[in-house]
């Protein structure tokens, strides 16, 4: 069956009433969690994970992925109207988006942001469609030693691109790998650090850790703040941008699509990095750079497009290699595994329905989000009027039920609460949680592939330096160096630091 025929089959799944319904639910919930500070895509996906258990894997993954890119759309709303980024990738949008809103131009900012998100999202799905299948074919031919090299590379890159202290990031990677060893040893079945508890035999629950480290720690951090939220309310008729806005934002949307697409391959914080790079690029190329920070529409269009263009690219390593590059795709990996679907090179041959159904649903989801976000922006903003302390109660109750229902185990609630407390303390001290979670997901496979490669080679470490490994290592390193070099040329780190100081 050709790729086109498979895509048509994917559309038949995505356009079924179930596909559409769950894609809509995912996009709607994603937008809500994107709007609400303290709930990012990861927490949003974990909360609805139990809902997918009774569903066909393709439909379940369509819904979870909808939450992922829906949150990217939703995050921009609060950035523009309240100057509170709904999630990390919308931090840059606060700068010019909120300035535009203060000048009574919230409507065009929201409109351009939604259109840019749509274009960026669609471009990245095209990339996913064309790049993932050939990449998967290459991956099938390689062995465990190359897998080890790839995973080590991914973890190294996470440590390098991190905005915080590198030692702290590496520490989080090591801690994540260490926590990943809890449970039965993959190769011998020997229990490790389970202390006789059968609940720990399968390892620490990823959902519980993700909710604790990201969701709960964020809630605890937000409880320290006592600011009241004042949102600017745009009217629907004010949404139409002026010709000047369209002219200024069109090239920014084009560049944002390319930047987001390229940066999506960087593991760790690619969605965040891409927005800073896009902002820096737009400022550098602008005829009026002094307008940036004072309500330049290109400063909204570029970053918003870029952070949505990342969503499709971030799925490439997950679906083609089975290696998640950001925490949200790590959760998707976990969800796929729960459903008995193994992401990786064999996904396209073993379960093409999942891959192509997902690709098709991403096109449809982007259209749903475009039509959903603009008319309903008033409703989404009104969510912010609910006192945060009330929201906390609702979020905690849903989180606890969600975490418990994955394995029907109280241990998982313990893991969530304790990791939430630890995450809160660590985040206050400048430790990042994303590297820990990614390492936790990769740890199991990294160790298994490492030991398997050594067994196959008769204990020779030279297996990690065979031709295939070196070629993969060299090409990935070269690509990453190029991307990182571009980021530095365009002053990503400077703009990142500037914004950190500003906030």
């Amino acid at each position: 069956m050709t790729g086109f025929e498979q895509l048509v089959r994917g559309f038949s799944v995505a356009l079924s009433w179930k596909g559409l319904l769950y894609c809509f639910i995912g996009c709607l919930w994603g937008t809500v969690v994107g709007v609400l500070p303290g709930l990012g895509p990861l927490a949003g996906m974990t909360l609805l994970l139990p809902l997918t258990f009774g569903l066909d894997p393709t439909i379940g993954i369509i819904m979870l992925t909808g939450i992922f890119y829906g949150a990217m759309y939703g995050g921009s709303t609060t950035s523009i109207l309240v100057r509170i980024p709904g999630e990390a990738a919308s931090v840059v949008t606060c700068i010019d988006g909120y300035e535009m809103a203060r000048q009574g131009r919230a409507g065009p900012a929201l409109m351009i942001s939604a259109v840019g998100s749509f274009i960026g999202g669609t471009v990245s799905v095209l990339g996913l469609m064309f790049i993932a299948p050939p990449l998967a074919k290459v991956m099938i031919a390689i062995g465990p030693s190359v897998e080890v090299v790839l995973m080590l590379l991914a973890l190294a890159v996470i440590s390098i691109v991190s905005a915080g202290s590198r030692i702290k990031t590496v520490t989080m990677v090591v801690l994540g790998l260490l926590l990943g060893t809890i449970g039965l040893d993959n190769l011998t079945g020997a229990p490790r650090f389970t202390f006789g508890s059968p609940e720990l035999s399968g390892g620490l629950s990823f959902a519980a850790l993700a909710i604790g480290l990201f969701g709960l720690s964020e809630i605890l951090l937000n409880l320290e703040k006592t600011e009241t939220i004042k949102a600017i309310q745009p009217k629907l008729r004010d949404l139409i941008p002026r010709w000047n806005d369209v002219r200024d934002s069109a090239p920014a949307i084009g560049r944002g699509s390319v930047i987001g697409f390229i940066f999506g391959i960087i593991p760790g914080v690619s969605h965040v990095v891409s927005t800073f790079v896009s902002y820096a690029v737009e400022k550098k190329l602008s005829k009026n750079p002094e307008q940036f920070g004072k309500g330049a529409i290109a400063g909204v269009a570029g970053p918003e497009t870029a952070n949505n263009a990342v969503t499709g690219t971030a799925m490439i390593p997950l679906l083609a290699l089975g290696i998640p590059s950001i925490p949200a795709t790590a959760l998707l990996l976990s969800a796929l595994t729960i459903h008995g679907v193994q992401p990786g090179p064999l996904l396209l041959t073993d379960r093409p329905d999942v891959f192509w159904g997902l690709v098709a649903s991403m096109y449809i989801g982007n259209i749903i989000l475009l039509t959903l976000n603009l008319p309903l922006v008033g409703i989404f903003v009104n969510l912010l009027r609910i006192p945060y302390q009330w929201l906390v109660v609702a979020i905690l109750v849903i989180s606890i039920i969600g975490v418990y229902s994955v394995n029907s185990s109280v241990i998982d609630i313990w893991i969530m609460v304790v990791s939430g407390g630890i995450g809160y303390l660590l985040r206050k001290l400048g430790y990042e949680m994303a590297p820990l979670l990614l390492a936790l997901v990769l740890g199991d496979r990294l160790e298994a592939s490492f030991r398997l490669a050594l067994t196959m080679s008769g204990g020779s470490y030279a297996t990690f330096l065979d031709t295939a490994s070196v070629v993969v290592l060299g090409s990935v390193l070269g690509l990453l160096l190029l991307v990182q070099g571009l980021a530095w040329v365009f002053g990503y780190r400077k703009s990142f630091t500037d914004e950190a100081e500003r906030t």
Partner: protein
Amino acid sequence: MADPASVTDHASSPQDAEAADTGSRRPFLPRVIGSRCASLLAAGALALTGLIFAWQASLLDLGHIGLPGPGFFPLVLGGLLVLLSALIAIESRLASFKDEPLEFGHPQVLITFAALLAVPLLFELLGAYITLGLLSAVLLVLIARVSVLLGVVCSAVGMAACWYLFGELLGVRLPIGPFEGPF
């Protein structure tokens, strides 16, 4: 003002100086700790974690360098964690960054965390809905500052909604505690 006994490195921070000038008394909570001191404590905790993992891993079959056993990987990682923690400790002592005061123990954070710790203890004993209803009521009264009556009513309505959504619509099976037998 921060408790002098708990603050050593940053006694001359602007906040403290201001508080001293005005003679005002800082509330007991939150407590203020210098970022260097906090960083050292975190490094110590991480090192301890690494040591425990390494010790436990050493009790497992380590295999040999060419054919590692189940204990090999965690032993190496535990050792690495100890090493990295030491580097963080050294960095926090030597680095030139400003020793900024960090606040720990905000009452709202402590109340929420304490309430959450009670949840796994009571979850199977009292059942999910009663436990989560109690959690909601406590948080609404103590964090959202609503009246006890409103807190209880809202929690009851919320739990009824949860039961319908999760129990009936989604078929999620949650423990029902004392009602396990009759139903």
